[in-house]
């Protein structure tokens, strides 16, 4: 009951912010005015902010920016011994490679123990920066796609640099700053020391690790990133000290993906169009919450039965309701932060977390990635509906022809391809058995989770799997890269194609996309695509474990 009220409080907070934040974001991306600070930035970087770009140029911006981001982040880690606040920590090449891709692609998968690997300078100037800009890139791509729907007979999608800078400076930065302070007030640390020596009451000595956590924690959740400054991530007392900070962090990781549905509605001139997408996202999020919560709240599996409750890998201050709520939200938003260890969840609970990711970042998905992923799925749903009635499908006044459906299909199929090929290939390797932390079906789930998480740019893990060998570091790195860039390129191509069309007027034959019929069709399509693609894989791992 208390847990349910906690969920209602979260939903109320999101409902309050939905309109103002959604409207604010719509203004940010549509106003022609640049602030004085932004003008100075554009002058300094020699970019003409009023020059709109065709989709290939916009895409080249995304790819080029991601490329230099990966290179710079790799170099920062490798050159850490020369940088301030390094505390003698070093990063080896495979960790640096994996981490650079991981943070640039908004995955924030971590194959290292931060307390002993990353110094504060790399955390701030490297990882924190990517926490902001990788989210801003996702939002920019989403806005470009929305412009594709609302514009007609143009080849221009906006200016990537303007969208990137505005998203970072006008949306993410102010919210992150305020919440960094709020989180410190609740107990999250913000220290430039590496640690502090303590003499425990029993006379033994220890060192408590410290870090500039609050500034990173705020953007890590807000930008749906998820990389912890401590190894235990949001389970660490210094990242998430109590139930209030827990609720605020869950709120932060949901607020932008949720509010972007409002932004979408405002920009396309029909707020119901956004509302219906939010409804679909909410139903799937709520459904998966029920599954994970039920699975964890009842002693499922021998360990929980023996202990009396599934508290392995969970913190007392959050309990099972606070852990299930976080797990559902972090896997639904492609955040990947964790406040409880998913590896120790029951077969059904852990399987629920995997399935939530396998929906493909749309329950409600990451910052920007959520809205563009569900829009792509909406195109597929309308295409299927069009096939059924034998009529050229339309969505938001744009005809969905061969090119649009091809782009949408590529955007959707990239992730399953990476997940299934990656998992399959890893299992064929003789070294994989030794990397597992658990035997049986659960061992398989650990590998499936890893490739699912990487390819969906989530970043959470069944963390028992040892991913430090060259195979995992490189293939998971590539899954993150392709899982990010292939859908983005397909979405931008789609946006370009949509923008070049003229709007077709609505007729009596047009299927309305604001009502329950469309919502049901879209939900069905999402469930069907995930089920057809992944049931065999899920049957080998989580389903087997749950039924045992």
């Amino acid at each position, binding site marked *: 009951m*208390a847990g349910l009220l*906690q969920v209602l*409080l979260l939903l109320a907070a999101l409902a309050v912010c939905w309109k103002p934040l959604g409207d604010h974001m719509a203004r940010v991306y549509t106003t022609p005015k640049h602030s004085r600070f932004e003008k100075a*930035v554009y002058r300094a*970087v020699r970019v003409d902010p009023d020059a709109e770009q065709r989709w*290939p140029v916009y895409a*080249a911006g995304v790819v*080029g920016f991601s*490329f*230099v981001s990966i290179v*710079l982040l790799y170099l920062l880690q490798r050159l850490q011994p020369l940088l301030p606040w390094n505390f003698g920590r070093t990063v080896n090449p495979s960790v640096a490679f994996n981490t650079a891709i991981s943070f640039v692609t908004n995955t924030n998968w971590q194959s290292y123990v931060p307390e002993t690997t990353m110094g504060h300078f790399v955390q*701030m*100037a*490297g990882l*924190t920066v990517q926490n902001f800009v990788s989210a801003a890139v996702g939002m920019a791509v989403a806005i470009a796609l929305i412009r594709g729907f609302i514009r007609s007979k143009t080849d221009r999608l906006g200016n990537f*640099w303007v969208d990137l*800078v505005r998203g970072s400076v006008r949306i993410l*930065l102010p919210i992150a*700053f305020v919440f960094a*302070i709020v989180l*410190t007030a*609740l107990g999250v*640390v913000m220290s430039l020391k590496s640690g502090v020596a*303590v*003499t*425990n*009451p*029993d006379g*033994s000595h220890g060192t*408590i*690790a410290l870090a500039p956590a*609050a*500034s990173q924690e705020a953007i890590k959740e807000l930008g749906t990133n998820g990389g912890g400054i*401590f190894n*235990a991530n949001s389970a660490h*007392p*210094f990242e998430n000290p109590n*139930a*209030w900070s827990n609720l605020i962090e869950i709120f932060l990781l949901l607020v932008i993906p949720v509010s972007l549905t409002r932004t979408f509605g405002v920009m396309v001139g029909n707020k119901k169009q956004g509302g219906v997408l939010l409804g679909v996202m909410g139903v799937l999020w709520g459904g998966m919450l029920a599954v994970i919560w039920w699975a964890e709240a009842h002693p499922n*599996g*021998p360990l*929980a039965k*023996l*202990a*009396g*409750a599934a*508290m*392995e*890998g969970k*913190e*007392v201050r*959050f309990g099972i*309701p606070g852990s299930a709520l976080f797990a559902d939200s972090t896997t639904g938003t492609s955040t990947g932060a964790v406040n409880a260890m998913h*590896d120790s969840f029951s077969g059904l609970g852990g399987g629920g977390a995997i399935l939530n990711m396998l929906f493909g970042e749309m329950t409600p998905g990451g910052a920007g990635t959520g809205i563009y992923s569900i829009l792509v799925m909406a195109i597929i749903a309308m295409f299927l509906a069009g096939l059924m009635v034998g009529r050229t499908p339309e969505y938001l006044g744009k005809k969905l022809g061969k090119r649009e459906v091809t782009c949408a299909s590529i955007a959707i199929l990239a992730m399953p391809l990476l997940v299934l090929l990656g998992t399959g290939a890893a299992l064929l390797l003789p070294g994989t058995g030794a990397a597992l*932390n658990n*035997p*049986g079906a*659960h061992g398989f789930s650990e590998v499936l989770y890893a490739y699912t998480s990487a390819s969906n740019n989530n970043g959470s893990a069944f963390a*028992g799997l040892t991913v430090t060998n060259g195979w995992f570091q490189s293939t998971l790195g590539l899954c993150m890269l392709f899982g990010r860039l292939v859908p983005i390129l397909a979405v931008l191509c789609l946006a370009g194609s949509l923008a070049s069309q003229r709007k077709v007027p609505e007729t009596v034959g047009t299927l309305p996309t604001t009502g329950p019929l469309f919502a049901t069709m879209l939900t069905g399509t999402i469930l069907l695509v995930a089920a057809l693609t992944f049931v065999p894989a899920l049957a080998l791992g989580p389903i087997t*474990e749950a039924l045992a």
Partner: protein
Amino acid sequence: MKTLLAQTAAGLRVLVVLTVLLGVVYPLGVWLVDRLPGLQANAEGSLVSVNGTTVGSDLMGIDPKAANPGHDPWFHTRPSAVNGDPSTSGASNKAADNPDYIKVMQQRKTTIAAREGVDPAQVPPDAVTASASGLDADISPAYAALQAPRVARANGLPLARVLALVEANTTGRGLGFVGEPRVDVLMLNLAVRAAGPGAH
């Protein structure tokens, strides 16, 4: 290709500017605000001092070891996958059906039941399960109540006094529904020691 190169070069310039703003100005700005009284203690780890010695953090649980296990005066924290070492953190990541770990948990249950002189069935779930962080500051009120009689005996305190201290160090749910009831082990141990006959 030319477009890609030009955009990449622009990307590098934008990245440098944003790194200064988001990677230096922003975190150091937050750090600076967090120097304000009321925030600074939190920012530096909510440390707890007794007679000028830093004995730990209010937010962190490090299991105290008894010099003589037959005369154990401490409330104990939950099991930790990192041996309660606060310079790192982490969980066991053991699956819900891991056969080896079932034996480990069985062992914990037996040990704790023997230590407290109770039936193994009375040992609460949080006592035998490793936390997610390995540094969980808290135990459930049930686990604190289970340990109270032994702690009272070992410290020469009346049980009622110890139970009152448990009560005083228990945090309920926020507004009655946010989070779970919990007992801060470090603060409780310090309170017990301060109340005991050996207190200085």
